[in-house]
């Protein structure tokens, strides 16, 4: 079986997106990814860790066809990432809560199913199932802006899973959610992985990566600096905790012994 994700020499320089009369943005001319290689096996639970601006979201956006890559090749289950076949296989839950303000919960899921080619009956069945799983059935007719933060986060995840993707990309899915919801989302993501779905997770919570991921890659300044299991990373950096290994990998000297 081809790998879920095969990325070779991926580079992205922001700066080729000028518009009429537009002032250059702060990111223009900025190299977010520099010749990055990454290989994620089908069925893996893969974590991507790095500080803000390391290139995690850029990497995800490149895989999901949301940015124009500068150089390199991205394949999803053997298909070029910008092909329709590859796009059908990916489910993305973005870091930002980017829900359509005009749609209610049910419509959000049904239209997403439509965008991904689901027929109406299948989309209805799946939307019902997703609303039950994520405890959104009671809010089916409520528009996204009227939902609580936690419910919006659940809806984002439900939307990402609506079309039953084989590769689910979760960009900081538990950012700003309470502890109970975080545990609930962990439970569901684990179940999903148990059913054979490949998961690519980015997070700033190191304990989350350690708890969930089989393998973790550390990314800094657009380059992969290490990848291994949590145990392997601790051992490689002579650290007792993943936090310590992370700080060392990022070149920091901070004393993180209090995190042990």
């Amino acid at each position: 079986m081809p790998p879920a994700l095969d990325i070779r020499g991926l580079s992205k320089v922001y700066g080729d997106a000028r518009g009429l009369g537009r002032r250059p943005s702060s990111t223009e001319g900025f190299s977010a990814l520099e010749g990055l290689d990454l290989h994620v096996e089908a069925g893996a639970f893969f974590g991507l860790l790095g500080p803000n601006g390391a290139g995690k979201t850029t990497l995800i956006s490149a895989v999901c066809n949301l940015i124009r890559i500068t150089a390199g090749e991205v394949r999803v289950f053997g298909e070029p990432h910008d092909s329709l076949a590859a796009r059908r296989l990916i489910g993305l839950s973005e870091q930002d809560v980017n829900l359509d303000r005009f749609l209610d919960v049910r419509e959000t899921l049904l239209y997403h199913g439509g965008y991904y080619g689901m027929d109406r009956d299948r989309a209805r069945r799946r939307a019902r199932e997703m609303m039950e799983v994520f405890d959104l059935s009671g809010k089916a007719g409520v528009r996204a802006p009227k939902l609580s933060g936690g419910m919006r986060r659940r809806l984002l995840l439900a939307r990402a899973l609506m079309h039953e993707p084989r590769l689910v990309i979760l960009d900081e899915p538990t950012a700003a959610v309470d502890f109970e919801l975080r545990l609930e989302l962990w439970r569901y993501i684990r179940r999903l992985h148990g059913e054979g779905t490949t998961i690519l997770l980015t997070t700033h919570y190191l304990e989350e990566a350690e708890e969930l991921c089989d393998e973790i890659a550390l990314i800094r300044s657009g380059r992969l600096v290490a990848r291994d299991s949590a145990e392997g990373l601790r051992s490689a950096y002579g650290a007792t905790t993943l936090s310590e290994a992370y700080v060392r990998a990022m070149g920091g000297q901070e004393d993180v012994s209090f995190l042990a």
Partner: protein
Amino acid sequence: MVAVPAHRRGLAALATRETHRVLKLWLQTIAAPVLASFLFIVVFGLSLGERIDSVDAIPYDAYIVPGLIAMAMVQAAYSNNASSVFQARFEHYINDVLAAPMRAWEVNLGLTIGGVVRALAIGAALMVASLLVTPVGIAQPLVLLAAVALLCVLFGSLGVVVGIYAESFDHHMAVNSIAILPLAFLGGVFYSVESLPSPWEELSHLNPIFYLVQAMRFGFLGSADVPVALSLGVTAALAVLVVAWSARLFATGRRLKA
């Protein structure tokens, strides 16, 4: 009910979403512009019209109807798509569409449909109201159909393009209030440009909306300031240019994807 083929479900869903948005906000998107344009017809046509001589032997209340309908439809097609696309970009929910397995032209077409539906709904409502209260008729239905189709394509696509370039709500509002609205007013909606002194008459011929108003007027009344082939030709050429611009933005991802 006709089932949508699997490979066109994305387009159908996006077109339905855009139409859904128009209908969900019908008071703002349809009722308000219909009322505003109808008031123009009532005030300028029925009230002041009795004091104004006929234009080209056409009663004034009938004379202004085609231009007013064109003006309302132009603004609807443009502003609907500009605000829908801008909002989707601004709040990043356009990513759900851009990541989906849809071809670039399908996304482009799907996003254009909302403005087309809105313009057609407004045009149809105004036409029915005008037929009831003014002596306007439909002299050349095929010309009218062609003019309406070109209007929807030209200004629907222009709205999408501006929605893609705009960096704030002010930008797309400015295009409407600084360019489209003045050009529509100066495009012979309320008068025949032949009655203008030189050089205003000649300058009016540089106004692209002038040709659209003339094509609509020929469709409704059977007469216009310029030959219908010229007015339809100029409008079609502009439509091709704007559609090509919009198609290129979607094909390359320029301005849509960083």
